[in-house]
């Protein structure tokens, strides 16, 4: 992929000086610039990542030893619930949306997102949503404590914070849907001449599919939580057995949203990894079109496997068999992707800068998380794993060394492009090793805890689980404090350092349009669309 249009930045300043960023704080409030909004999203995400992480450390502190030490069980449950809600909706999703805002227009040769004002709105809803969610901690009865899945009837016992939680979900849902509308419209209408759909960088492709998933499932979730709201306050009986409703229906609705949601959290990671590995292997991506089709199949299959989260609610044998086989089928396109990444590295001239280290760790550790997922797709086996630490280990392996590692990889990969300065490679590698070792120390023992029967979401445990829990807590604290280093590295790169070249990484200009712009790119980039051969 190469662009024939010369970069036009040299004379940019003469022509467009009136279009530069406004000054002061209001620049960020009024901005419709995709780069500004991308930055806002990512800063918000980093803040939420630290808050959600602090909550995780409260959980791990309490679980360091058997017995009740630091927090009461109610607060513990609030922490598990908020940790999940904040990490899913506050850290991972906004981070991907931020990267999409920054990179998609640059990658497809567009001057901005298609709907810049909508873009501003979809970001600025988030801070209000999270302030509302955080305020529940100070309410009568505390924050929601029924788990992020908000299952009735338990969730209906939430105190004053209940409607605030529901409205937070509505707001975040509207924000995500608007971001999805923007991304789809941008990719369909704003591509540079010659940039056909099958030439799109994979990060863009995976985001388009993610956006379709968001549009299809966020409204279902919004509907389900609205029913919870009317059940609690308006006397309806959607999920109330006494009035003829069925709590299990909520689980079906939730997981019809929830399973595509977990792919919303991972598909953009696949895209980021598919950008990084070819750059550092100095080879084009192996099997580009199979990657596109695999991502699309994962997206489609995600709609028909939801009940594998509910094997224990009682299902006829035919249902259990169907959901088992359909779930296992997802391993096929996922396997295609893993093998393509490995084939891309095969006989490549690899170098191991920090983004590549995170990408390789992603491939290995995400695959492990995928395999434990396969174990749990087998319904008779899942009855043993259900609601134990095994599932906790599984989804943290796909979300932390999965989504979060991809985000860190993407941050290191594009940070020189965003800031114009190279990050400190030595510190980056230190951050990588601290993070990778501690993430495994944290979550690997949880597999054994789960297989031995330790239930999730319980603040106390039997003494035989003490050692693995102690390891896990130590790992979690090392992991948590290592992320301060990540923030330090980012701030350091923003403030200055070695100037980054336009292509940043050797040979990267062959791997995408973003590397043909200067580092940092001008405030308005690709005003003249490049021509993609």
């Amino acid at each position: 992929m190469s662009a024939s249009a010369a970069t036009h930045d040299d004379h940019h300043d003469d022509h467009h000086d009136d279009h530069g960023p406004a000054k002061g704080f209001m620049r960020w409030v009024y901005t419709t610039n995709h780069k500004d909004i991308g930055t806002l999203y990512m800063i918000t995400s980093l803040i939420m990542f630290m808050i959600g992480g602090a909550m995780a450390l409260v959980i791990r502190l309490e679980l360091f030893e058997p017995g009740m030490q630091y927090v009461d069980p109610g607060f513990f449950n609030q922490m598990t619930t908020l940790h999940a809600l904040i990490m899913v909706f506050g850290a991972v999703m906004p981070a991907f949306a931020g990267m999409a805002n920054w990179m998609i227009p640059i990658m497809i040769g567009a001057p901005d997102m298609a709907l810049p004002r909508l873009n501003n709105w979809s970001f600025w809803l988030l801070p209000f949503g999270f302030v509302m969610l955080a305020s529940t901690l100070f309410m009568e009865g505390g924050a929601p404590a029924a788990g992020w899945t908000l299952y009735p009837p338990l969730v209906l016992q939430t105190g004053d914070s209940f409607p605030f939680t529901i409205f937070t979900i509505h707001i975040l849902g509207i924000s995500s849907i608007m971001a999805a509308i923007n991304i789809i419209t941008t990719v369909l209408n704003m591509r540079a001449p010659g940039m056909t759909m099958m030439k799109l960088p994979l990060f863009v492709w995976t985001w388009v599919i993610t956006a379709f998933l968001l549009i299809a499932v966020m409204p279902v979730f919004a509907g389900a939580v609205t029913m919870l709201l009317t059940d609690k306050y308006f006397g309806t009986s959607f999920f109330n057995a006494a009035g003829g409703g069925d709590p299990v229906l909520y689980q079906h609705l939730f997981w019809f949203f929830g399973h595509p949601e977990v792919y919303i959290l991972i598909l953009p990671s696949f895209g980021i990894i598919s950008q990084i590995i070819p750059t550092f292997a100095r080879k084009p991506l192996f099997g580009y079109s199979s990657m596109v089709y695999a991502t699309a199949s994962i997206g489609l299959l995600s709609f028909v496997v939801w009940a594998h989260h509910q094997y224990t609610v009682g299902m006829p044998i035919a249902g259990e068999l169907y959901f088992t086989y359909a779930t296992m089928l997802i391993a096929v396109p996922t396997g295609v992707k893993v093998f393509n990444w490995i084939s891309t590295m095969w006989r490549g001239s690899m170098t191991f800068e920090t983004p590549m280290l995170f990408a390789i760790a992603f491939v290995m550790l995400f695959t492990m998380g995928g395999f434990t997922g396969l174990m749990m797709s087998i319904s008779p086996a899942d009855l043993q794993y259900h609601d134990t630490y095994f599932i906790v280990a599984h989804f943290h392996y796909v979300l932390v060394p999965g989504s979060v590692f991809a985000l860190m990889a993407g941050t290191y990969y594009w940070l020189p492009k965003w800031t114009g300065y190279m990050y400190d490679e030595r510190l980056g590698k230190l951050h990588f090793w601290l993070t990778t070792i501690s993430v495994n120390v944290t979550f690997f023992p949880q597999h054994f805890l789960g297989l031995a029967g330790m239930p999730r979401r319980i603040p106390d445990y039997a003494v035989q689980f003490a050692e693995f829990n102690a390891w896990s807590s130590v790992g979690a604290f090392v992991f948590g404090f290592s992320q301060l280093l990540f923030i330090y590295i980012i701030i350091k790169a923003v403030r200055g350092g070695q100037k980054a070249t336009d292509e940043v990484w050797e040979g990267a200009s062959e791997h995408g349009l973003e590397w043909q712009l200067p580092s940092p790119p001008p405030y308005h980039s690709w005003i003249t669309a490049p021509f993609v051969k």
Partner: protein
Amino acid sequence: MTNPHTKDNTIARSNRRIIVIIVLVALGMFGLGFAVVPLYNVFCEVTGLSGKIRAEAAIEKPQGVDESREVTMEFVTALNQDTPLNFRVETPKLKIHPGQYYTVRFHAENLTDQVVTARAIPSVAPGTATQFLEKVECFCFSEQRFEPHQHRVLPVRFVIDAALPAEIRDITLSYTFFDISNKQQNSSTR
């Protein structure tokens, strides 16, 4: 590209079309979430998947009794949260023949000095047996009113259809009493 304004207009129109389609899809999915509620109930009643039983009385009609087959019926009583009743069954376990009518007596007693209105929700396990269980008489068909400290006998008359699949040898019928004294009778969603 010769006339950039035409191109801008085309893009603007195309943008609008995409937005309209996506917003309609999003609204449709929101509506689908609600449409699923009655569909789910119908689906569960037809297939018996959730173990829910039709809350209507069947008409007692003599049918062929399969003397050669014995099925174990188990009866479970439960109270939701703080429902102030004492609720039990006379015969927790009963060996029955498919096709024959049986009556089982449940006992419920109001433990308070106030009137308690309660509703019993039945559930059958395994769910696939649901459609073969017919009840002629059941206290679960309507709300039950208990005067202060009143003790009442609540009979259930039922039959298991002889067409019950051979692999089902045990059926559990459970009733959960929900206290609905404080709630006016709300129209249920079904």
